[in-house]
């Protein structure tokens, strides 16, 4: 634990609360297992001492801003999570003036389970090129030099190289595990429809069956609705109780969107996302 960094976060949070700049601060505290961490909402300056920050603070706290619309909130934001801020700004879901961003550098988060943390960095962290958040109001701890691997999407290209039937089998097995707990959706900063298509009654896109044929469509559309919007925090995969490799879906779309439309979500709050625009002259594969 970087004590100095944590102190900066605590001081800033206390300051913001005491001066009334914000109503609350969203940060991290130690979880009940004493090992991992969990989100913390601080409304009282005295509670700022509970705030921590270390390599177990994987949660993307930006999601919570959607619950606090209209309120002035401060939020502790890692570099990857910060892209979610830009996404939500781009889509008009949060107001910049209502959010105070306490940016933190990130050395990479480790794989954790209840009561257990490993030494292994999360996969998304290994290729993360961001030394600091893309947007912040206050940067605690300064920039962190990172030696990131190049994002090669090698896992994706490996999948792509397999036969269609193999891929079908693989995904059917994976989706067979899905219990439609919707944790992937609930944790995702890009999922904020008042009524998700999967639970809509008019029209009835999808039934309530927890079974491959419906799980399949659920996951297909969930990921596709994030095409060009997924900011790669990979929270969905982390929270999945049945271990579905959701990053293989999201990153496939990320890769294709990059290749087809030269776009990456969450880097620029003003840039038009791929489905909001087009180029008349572009030619897609099916046109060739």
């Amino acid at each position: 634990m970087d004590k100095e960094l944590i102190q900066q976060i605590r001081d800033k949070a206390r300051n913001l609360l005491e001066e009334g700049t914000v109503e609350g601060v969203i940060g991290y505290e130690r979880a009940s297992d004493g090992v991992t961490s969990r989100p913390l909402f601080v409304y009282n300056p005295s509670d700022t001492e509970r705030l921590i920050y270390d390599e177990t603070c994987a949660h993307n706290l930006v999601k919570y801003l959607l619950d606090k619309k209209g309120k002035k909130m401060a939020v502790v934001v890692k570099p990857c999570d910060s892209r979610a801020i830009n996404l939500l700004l781009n889509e008009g879901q949060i107001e910049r003036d209502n959010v105070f961003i306490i940016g933190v550098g990130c050395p990479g988060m480790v794989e954790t389970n209840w009561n257990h943390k490993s030494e292994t960095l999360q996969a998304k962290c290994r290729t993360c090129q961001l030394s600091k958040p893309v947007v912040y109001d206050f940067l605690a701890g300064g920039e962190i030099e990172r030696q990131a691997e190049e994002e090669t999407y090698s896992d994706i290209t490996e999948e792509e190289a397999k036969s269609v039937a193999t891929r079908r089998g693989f995904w059917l097995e994976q989706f067979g595990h899905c219990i439609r707990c919707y944790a992937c959706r609930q944790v995702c900063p890009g999922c904020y429809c008042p009524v998700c298509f999967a639970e809509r009654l008019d029209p009835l896109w999808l039934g309530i069956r927890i079974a491959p044929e419906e799980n399949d469509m659920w996951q297909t559309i969930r990921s596709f609705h994030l095409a060009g919007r997924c900011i790669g925090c990979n929270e969905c995969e982390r929270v999945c109780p049945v271990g579905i490799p959701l990053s293989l879906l999201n990153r496939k779309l990320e890769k294709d969107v990059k290749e087809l439309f030269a776009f990456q979500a969450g880097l620029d709050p003003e840039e038009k996302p791929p489905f909001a625009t087009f180029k008349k002259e572009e030619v897609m594969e099916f046109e060739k």
Partner: protein
Amino acid sequence: MKSEYQPKVIGFLCNWCSYAGADMAGTSRMRYPQNIRIIRVPCSGRVDPLFVVKCFQRGADGVLVSGCHPGDCHYTEGNYHTRRRFALLREFLDYLGIAKERMRVEWVSASEGQKFADLLSDFTAELAGLGPRSKILDG
């Protein structure tokens, strides 16, 4: 003849170009395989990717989304959005195991009855070659 595998094809055709092109194939008495069931939409830009995924979920063997040629959209820009949406969806479905050959995006104008007929013959033959796709289980 009857025992032969008949792929199930669903087509979303824009009202102004492709649906009219399909009408043109009819008025010109061209022949094409019976497999397609056409759903009329005002513009190919109306076709939510959800419809296509739903078709496959419901057991369609092939889906056609067809609109005006780029630049000719009755609503000026609808097909440009179609192009982007389905370029990505096609790739994605293929990745999930629904071969991209099963999904076609085509530009057919009101005068291209022949093109429409040819396209369906070709598409149906290609799907027949791929073989049946019982519900979601095969690629």
